[in-house]
């Protein structure tokens, strides 16, 4: 009798779904990404980290509101609240929730909440932009091969063999000068330019490693039989790229995105700390840290506020990234 239409076989193939160990027995029709996200949702650590990140995002977004409630802003000087040597004469109180900054007497709570903004904005904008560029170039290089691949690969090599910190330092003054005749710029313009330079530098160095990763993935996927099958069917190249390959790159993309975020926050604050990143009057954690190192003994809160901000945010993001990787790639589970 014919097996194909054997009713018995129908039964057995039903039964078999339960028998295949890899299959989730309860729900069907879940894409691998869905499964990964479900896994992530069950990871308590991931949820806690996501909440922390969310909290910081809220603080950054609601900074004006929070400061309005406090009744302060980040730019007003309160020199009457510091003594002759610049030390604050007041601690945290009802007017200034976190106290005031040495020397200028600016409100620390406002500085801190606004300081969360550049970190988050730069990290998100830079990581998303660099991911898009990385994915597009990686896909192109990997799939097209030939001279396109060679060119892109060379550029990747080139970018990756530039010393990132040094170039970041070199780029800032150059771009600032390119950006406009010095005489045309207000202090705010200057600060904004630094902001975009920082994003640019991070993107410039960020895309390459993802592109390399994606290229490698594409090359290995390209040899996978389902891509061959698509070709045999006559699926056009663009469709192969975006419908067959791209969905299979979700895991590396999500993972690298989740690792890029904390890395960029660290980079932003680090460059700013060195004095080559953001500048006054943009409030930022990196600047606060740099300024506060001189006051760490007399005014530890001033130092610890931004330190805790940067650390907690990167810690939460890194752990979240780790959980994301585990969720997408359970083999590497700790």
């Amino acid at each position: 009798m014919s097996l194909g239409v054997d009713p018995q076989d129908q039964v057995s193939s039903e039964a078999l779904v339960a028998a295949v160990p890899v299959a989730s027995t309860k729900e069907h029709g879940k894409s691998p990404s869905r499964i990964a996200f479900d896994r992530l949702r069950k990871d308590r650590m991931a949820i806690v980290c996501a909440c922390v990140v969310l909290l910081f995002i809220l603080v950054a977004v609601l900074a004006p509101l929070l400061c309005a409630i406090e009744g302060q802003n980040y730019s007003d000087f309160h020199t009457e609240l510091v003594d002759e040597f610049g030390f604050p004469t007041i601690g945290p109180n009802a007017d200034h929730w976190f106290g005031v900054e040495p020397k200028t007497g600016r409100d620390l709570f406002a500085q801190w909440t606004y300081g969360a903004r550049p970190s988050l904005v730069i990290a998100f904008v830079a990581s998303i932009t660099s991911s898009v560029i990385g994915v597009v170039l990686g896909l192109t290089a990997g799939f097209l091969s030939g001279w396109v691949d060679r060119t892109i690969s060379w550029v990747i090599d080139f970018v990756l063999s530039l010393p990132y910190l040094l170039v970041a330092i070199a780029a800032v003054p150059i771009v600032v000068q390119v950006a406009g005749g010095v005489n045309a710029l207000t202090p705010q313009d200057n600060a904004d330019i630094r902001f975009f330079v920082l994003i640019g530098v991070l993107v410039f160095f960020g895309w390459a490693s993802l592109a390399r990763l994606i290229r490698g993935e594409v090359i290995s996927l390209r040899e996978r039989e389902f891509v061959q099958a698509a070709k045999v069917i006559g699926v056009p190249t663009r469709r192969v790229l975006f419908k067959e390959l791209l969905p299979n790159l979700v895991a590396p993309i999500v993972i690298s995105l989740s690792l890029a975020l904390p890395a960029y926050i660290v980079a932003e604050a680090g460059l700013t700390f060195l004095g080559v990143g953001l500048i006054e009057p943009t409030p930022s954690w990196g600047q606060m840290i740099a300024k506060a190192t001189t006051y760490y003994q007399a005014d530890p809160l001033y130092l610890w506020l931004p330190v805790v901000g940067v650390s907690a945010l990167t810690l939460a993001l890194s752990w979240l990234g780790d959980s994301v990787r585990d969720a997408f790639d359970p083999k590497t589970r700790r």
Partner: protein
Amino acid sequence: MSSTPASGTPLLSVRDLKMHFPIKNTDGLFARKQVVQAVDGVSFDLGKGQTLGLVGESGCGKSTLGRAITRLYQPTSGQVLFEGTDLAGLPEKRMRPFRRELQMVFQDPYSSLNPRQTVGSIISTPLQVHGLAKGKEIQRVQELLERVGLNPEHHNRYPNEFSGGQRQRIGIARALAVEPQVIVADEPVSALDVSIQAQVMNLMEELRRDLGIAFVFIAHDLGVVRHFCDRVAVMYLGKMVEVGDREQVYTAPQHPYTQALLSAVPDLGAVRGVPPRERIRLAGDVPSPINPPSGCRFRTRCWKAQDICASQEPPLESKAEAGAGHSIACHFPEVKESLVAEASA
């Protein structure tokens, strides 16, 4: 089914097909361009509804041949004639209509399905690409699933929810979607367990019988080929060394390599009281296809090799004494009675 060779123009005709891969040699200062002669001048015909089995050792070019036929590779030279049209040189655009006629089933049930697509969308992709069953894709997908023995309700599941055998069925359904005339099956069952393998074999048998699809069936399991195919071609190092009807090749092999290959297959005869056959044990391994031996490529492992084998390449020609449609590429073909004793039992 009887194995009458098709008359008239064959459905698929391969003429002197060559597939050479350029590789970079990494020895020495300057990279010398070398080629892997993965397939080197292969010809055969395939009639409607016919099945041709391709057997041979690993690396002899079976998959490459299959891929060159389906134009996954652009053949180096030679022709692939489908109903008289040469596909070998066709640009991809003009190739598109022929893709409907010529499909492929792959070996690895895990990598041949896109893990990010539902079974439904995997099977409907060919429909969309070729504009088939417009508006009724879901019905068609369910029909196909049913055809290959899967529950049609499962079209919205992902491949990871299926077992190896079921996945292979999905792959077959995908190939069937465009109603092809020829399916190139590259080791479709070698990754499966015996019991599952038999299920899939049965399915293919059925398709062939019901739909009249012709198969180029690649396998290294000689038993499977023997079971499934009308004609069998034996490949060695990119060349066909022997081709003929199943009975001819299995019961009266004339090429020493075919003989050695067949005698190496372990079988159940021993426990069934069949007298042991003579065994030919080949020494050594298959030479590299980068620098194949001159003349007859098998001569380095052949016990019958003589000087002529090194200097002159034996053509694949039908020998009158061997029977119609039975061709052998050997300077000294002969039937070894001691070898075939068991096969007739």
